[in-house]
């Protein structure tokens, strides 16, 4: 078993007309690995998948499978099965014909096709539907036929183009686990394109986050969730609260200067290369802890902000507060509700506070959802 370099992308770039869609994509995927390509729409993730499937050629770079260059092979010679977002089932063929088509192309005898299609159908819970046309199936059934059609040819690599996005929220949750279990059982290498962070977290061994045609970060789900490499990744992974602070590294600590909403404090650097100066701080609402203003709020390393509750709501499981810190508003969750108008302390533990040096200009919050203003400490 090859641990590394089963599927390799080297310096892949792609342009559509004058637009650069993908730039310098390097990726090495091991056999049997489940990789999620995560990004917002227009980040190039679907382009990358179609490039792997052979529907578009890269403008630069190469794709290798088992060290064999497949960059310019036509789609039918690649042995990668793609599950389309639209499913692309053939409306003039029955379920059995759809699933068996790839086998028919390979010249498998008719009897064997029938047995293998039947096996695939029972694997996917499609028994008894062989004679149905796709138009007579539900969304979930169509999705499984599309998956069955791709799996029937025993592909080495399975490409999934947001195959769950057309399903109801409830079915989607079960299909996630079914798909992941099936992929593990069959030992297929899977590349899954999605814009759904939770879906990527639950299903993938490795998450590759794309931003504007470049790899922003790749790593295990817990890696990208807990150690985002950039403000973009932090925001994309849910750390949508953003504050601007000032600080200087001191030994293995990063000392944060006092500001209008926070007292001075320090957090461990933990190997991060932070330079002195203004930093962008990001954290998740669920990572913050709320206290009444007069309670002692420092438990372990972290930063405490002081502000006023602007609104409170109950989305389920916890209370979500909008807290005004100076001119900025942030979100923070708590077990109990604090009255709007009350003074509170918001404690963010050091390990949940993501700090990034600002690029030269202070324009570094492209997808911040709380961009009502900013506080310069």
């Amino acid at each position, binding site marked *: 078993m090859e641990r590394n370099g089963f599927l390799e992308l080297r310096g892949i770039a792609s342009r559509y007309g004058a637009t650069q869609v993908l730039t310098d994509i390097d990726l090495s995927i091991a056999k049997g690995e489940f990789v999620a390509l995560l990004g917002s729409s227009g980040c190039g993730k679907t382009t990358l998948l179609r490039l792997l499937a052979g529907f578009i050629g890269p403008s630069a770079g190469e794709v290798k499978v088992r060290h064999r260059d497949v960059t310019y092979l036509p789609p*039918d010679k690649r042995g990668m099965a793609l599950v389309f977002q639209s499913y692309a089932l053939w409306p003039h063929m029955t379920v059995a014909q759809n699933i068996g088509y790839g086998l028919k192309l390979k010249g498998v005898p008719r009897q064997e096709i029938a047995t293998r299609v039947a096996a695939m159908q029972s694997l996917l819970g499609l028994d008894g539907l062989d004679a149905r046309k796709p138009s007579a199936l539900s969304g979930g059934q169509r999705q499984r036929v599309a998956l069955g059609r791709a799996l029937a040819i025993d592909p080495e690599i399975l490409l999934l183009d947001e195959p769950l996005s057309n399903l109801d929220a409830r079915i989607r949750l079960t299909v996630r686990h079914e798909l992941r279990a099936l992929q593990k059982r069959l030992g297929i290498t899977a590349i899954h394109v999605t814009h759904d962070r939770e879906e990527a977290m639950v299903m993938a061994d490795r998450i590759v986050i794309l931003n504007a045609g470049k790899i922003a970060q790749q790593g295990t789900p817990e890696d990208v969730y807990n150690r985002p490499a950039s403000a973009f990744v932090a925001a994309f992974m849910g750390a949508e609260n953003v504050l601007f602070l000032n600080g200087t590294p001191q030994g293995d600590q990063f000392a944060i200067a006092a500001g209008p909403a926070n007292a001075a404090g320090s957090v461990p650097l933990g190997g991060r290369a932070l330079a002195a100066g203004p930093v962008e701080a990001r954290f998740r609402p669920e990572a913050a802890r709320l206290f009444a203003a007069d309670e002692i709020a420092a438990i372990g390393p972290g930063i405490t902000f002081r502000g006023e509750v602007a609104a409170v709501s109950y989305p389920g499981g916890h209370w979500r507060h909008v807290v005004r810190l100076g001119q900025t508003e942030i979100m923070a969750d708590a077990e109990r509700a604090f009255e709007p108008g009350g003074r509170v302390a918001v404690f963010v533990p050091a390990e949940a506070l993501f700090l990034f040096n600002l690029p030269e200009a202070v324009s570094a919050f492209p997808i911040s959802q709380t961009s009502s203003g900013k506080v310069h400490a």
Partner: protein
Amino acid sequence: MTAAHIPAARNPLAALWWVPRGIIFGLMAFFIFGPLFNLLLWTVAEKWYFPHSLPLEYGFSSWAKVFAPRGGAMESLTNSLIVALLTVVVSLALAIPAGYALARLKLPFRGLILLAFLIPQAFPNLTVYVNIARIFYEIRLNGTIPGVVLVHVSHGLVYAVWIATAAFSAIDAELEQAARNLGAGAFRAFLDVTLPLAAPGLMASAIFVFLESLDEFTGSYFVGAPDVNMLPLLLYTTAAGGNYQIASITALLLLVPSLVFMLIVERFLKADVLSRVGH
């Protein structure tokens, strides 16, 4: 019907809606079926002249004349059917690749190319066909079945290509890509996926071309006559000679395939294909 009840409650005049409606439908029926009925009467009339509004004698002697070995009707009918079928075959053989290319490829001047198929119809038919006849005479195509077929193809290609383009555009390219992805070559994907899905539209274009060819007069006259006689020509000569019985029977012969094919079109031509004609 239910729609008529609701305003009736408010407006007593609304109850009289059926009067203008009845008149309009009656007139439409008269304009459509009146001439047809007249034609049917003529086919069985033995004697019918001016002041009488109905034939004086009925009989089938004209039918016997038409189908007599020297009547020429059978020959014209055979010629017309052979030419129409060949026209369909040639038109589709050209329209399938052309329509596919126009639907799928990013061609420059795509609209212009589609419009170009209209050119044979853009100029007065007579001018075009007289010149074609002259050229065909030189290359000895005049008075031959292939010559007539070529003229009909030039005329029918606009329908064939436009409808085929619409039929192929209506098919999602991802359906082909799915076949390619599973290991089908480009041609295999076309045969297994694209062609069966486009078949209803192609069938409809074939029917249009067939009907156009059956009906076509000017080209058949200049290129075909007098060696290759077609049904419309027979209709013309008999009607011009005042023999309305023979003309009506010929017209009826022309009408039958049209009616049969209209029924088939109605079954095959889906609205989603029609809506893409010219796109």
